């Protein structure tokens, strides 16, 4: 699948994402925010980083950019949209996904390997994948919030869990409602998540040799 990996000024993870996407044979390339043509791609990934320095609020300046109008078009056409970390923040800030991402309860940046339970398998990204994935988080503003907790649970695709997939408060790294680590839109073609699948795509980099991130990215290789 022709996949654009969007680079805003301040994006830091674009090359890492391309490297992982090539493992699943996606036709991926880095596209600068000011030269993005949505019609040329079937899928788009908004990688992590600090777009526009995260000035004002994480993701908010990028959310109001021309490039994000293109992403919204793709989302509306049912094309695949994946936002990772800052990309998730941008999707939420632009209103393409519901809710908000608030500062972590500990009010500081946290890097940590986390287990997430896959709570929805009705999306193209999660169809038929394992129940529990191991991926690292790295963020200061990743506390998912939605006023209606029931709705948050329905939208949730990934929830922080223990290694056996139990969603328990002790493993919630940032205070997200319902331990939400990632959500999708109703249709399931747009997903945002705080953990980094591209960092869980190379066995030599993961604590246990797993490559769970590839499970999510694989859809771009089809």
């Amino acid at each position, binding site marked *: 699948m022709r996949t654009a990996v969007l680079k805003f*000024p*301040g994006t*830091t*993870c674009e090359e*890492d994402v391309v*490297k*992982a996407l090539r493992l699943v044979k996606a036709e991926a390339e880095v596209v*600068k925010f*000011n030269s993005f043509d949505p019609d040329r791609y079937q899928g788009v990934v908004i990688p*992590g*980083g*600090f777009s*526009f*320095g*995260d*000035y004002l609020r994480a993701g908010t300046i990028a959310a109001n950019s021309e490039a994000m109008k293109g992403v919204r078009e793709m989302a509306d056409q049912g094309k695949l949209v994946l936002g990772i970390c800052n990309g998730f923040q941008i999707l939420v800030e632009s209103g393409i996904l519901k809710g908000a991402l608030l500062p972590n309860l*500990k009010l*500081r*940046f*946290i*890097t*940590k390997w986390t287990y997430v339970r896959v709570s929805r398998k009705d999306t193209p990204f999660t169809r038929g994948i394992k129940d529990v994935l191991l991926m*690292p988080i*790295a963020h200061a503003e990743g506390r998912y919030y939605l006023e209606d907790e029931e709705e948050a649970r329905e939208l949730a695709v990934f929830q922080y869990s223990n290694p056996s997939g139990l969603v328990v408060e002790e493993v919630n790294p940032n205070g997200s409602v319902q331990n939400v680590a990632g959500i999708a839109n109703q249709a399931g073609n747009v997903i945002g998540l705080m953990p*980094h699948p*591209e*960092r869980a*795509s*190379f066995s*030599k*980099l993961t604590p246990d040799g797993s490559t769970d991130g590839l499970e999510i990215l694989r859809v771009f290789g089809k």
Partner: protein
Amino acid sequence: MMLTLSSKEMELVRSTLDREPNEAEWKVVDALWSEHCSYKSSKTFLRSLPTTGQGVIMSVEDWQDAGAVDVGDGWALVLKVESHNHPSAVDPYNGAATGVGGILRDIISKGARPIALLDMIRVGGLDAKGKWLLKNIIAGIASYGNSVGVPVVGGELSFDPTYTDNPLVDVACVGVVKASEIVPSVVRTPGLKLVLVGFTGLDGIGGASFASRKLSGMDEIGAVQIADPFAGKILIDATLEVRGKVEAMKDLGGGGLAVAVTEMANGLGARVQLERVPLRVKGMSPEEIIISETQERMLFAVKSENVQEVCRAFEDYNYPCEVIGEIVSEPRITFTYEGKVVVDLPSQLLLSPPLFVWPMNRKVRTEEVKEVSVREALSTILLHPDLGNKEWAYSQFDYEVGVSTLVKPGQADSAVIELPNGRQIAVKGDANQDLCEVDAYECGKAIVAEAFRNLASVGARGIAAVDHLQFGDPRKPEVYQDFVDSIRGISEAAKFFSVPIVGGKVSFHNEDKNGNPIKPTPLIVMAGLVEGKYLKPRVEEGWLVLLGITRNELRGTLFSRLFGGRGEVARARLMEDLLASELIIKAINESKLTWNKDINKGGLAGSLLPILASGHAVHINTKAVIGTRDLLSILFSESGGRFLVLTDDPHWFHIQASRKGIVASTIGKVTKGKASLFLDDVELPLEREVERYLNMLEEELS
């Protein structure tokens, strides 16, 4: 603004020029001749460091730039270390953040892509001030490193009252570049255009002088630079885009434009039109523009025909890029403002500050010895924050970005990073203020040896190092003697291990508010190439083998910091370090061990903490420890040349050690269970200490 020039230096300037310089010219001379930029008190001795050797592609020129070594397939590794001690004492967040920004620009100014950062931090303790400093220093480093997408992969954290008023914040960076694409920092031909990117503002006025004197206690916030990591990220991306189109690059650091222009011209001349400098604020005076140390700026020397293309890359990001002048053949540095000459000085004068060799004198040391029981010493040492788990700090860094951090912070004594050519390097920074305080010469050798061992512990052999020499006021004879001694020690060890010192930095005037110098704190950052396999250490049940000889060397250790000196000073017997390191690398390649650690801070006892904290008990037979019968020395001596190894094949180590001419002894075993140390079958429960080890920083600093 205070000048730091002495009356003698001022007289020399006047007589060379045969006139009284104007105010702006004094400021330019003051910046160029500052200790920070000129190395006038250190250069004579720095020249003795071994800076060349097999694999060195580029070594220090005038002690300003990053060095580079060959890492195979045409790739070079670029390495640099720097401190931001004084700014961090006044504004720890911005001081530390700009330290990171500065070291990154040092790497990109060689055309190299930064791939990893290290931070080595020293504060007075976990009191209110120490906590304020540490929280902000870590947050500042995290803010910058994370924002630009360069992983902080390791470092050091130490707490010692000597740093109460004057914290040490050292940052190091490694980068990679094709050796054929390294960009020089000096020009060789006139006619090139000087292109400045980035805005110039009012922050960091006179920062080079600020770094070259002791903290005054007065309002010095104006000398601290403000960090803008987003601008830093754009600067990195755009600079690397245009690196093939520029003839020379230099980052603007200490001394601002004055220093960057003069050093880039390197004996040629330069004419700069100050009104062309893009300003962040209105109404800056010409002198302020010349010496401002605003961050996130770079100076390029560019052929006229390439200027447009270079600037286009920056304009893409709305980043200012202007031609501000040119390199000329007449060897004068001239700054004009709207046609009026502001500064006009001979290049040679600026580049030739008088060098000093200050008087030296041996420090008289007295140490009070406190009586202590083994049990009490064990608890106190194991509870010391220097040994505590550092997760609170490194979890604030985005150490996974770049998908190349193979051995991560907290996993081992060195980080391991994958290079673009598929090979792996290990990096580590080491200092030892306890040993340097009692014997700077032995300490100089020991920190090189320790870094070499730390790299070996993950399977790498040191190939290059940079040093950072942090001392008090060089005009004090006791300080200067320690300074010279430590350089001698570093030089000898670097030569012995064939690890050239390819760059470095000196920071003097680190003193407390009463004018007492900090303990001498030279620091080594070493990089090594993995030879074959690398090790991700993991604690499992197995036999404990101790490589090397444990001597009654309790002086200059963490133990003596707490309980006074006993026995002797730990001398660096470099052959023992080399042979033991080689044996560890061999063992890793033959999969003969699951875990190992070089023995250093806190001695054997200190190195047990990671084992005890992983749900294991340790059994030690003290009679099997070779070299001493003294129980305090067995547990706390910091003799070099030693590794503690976990293995299921102790016999292999005995044989291999004996073949190499060193000693290995099976001193005990590790079993699953609660955290207890069985010392000759007497159980010492250590659950409280281990609990505290794991959570100390989190509890104190959250």
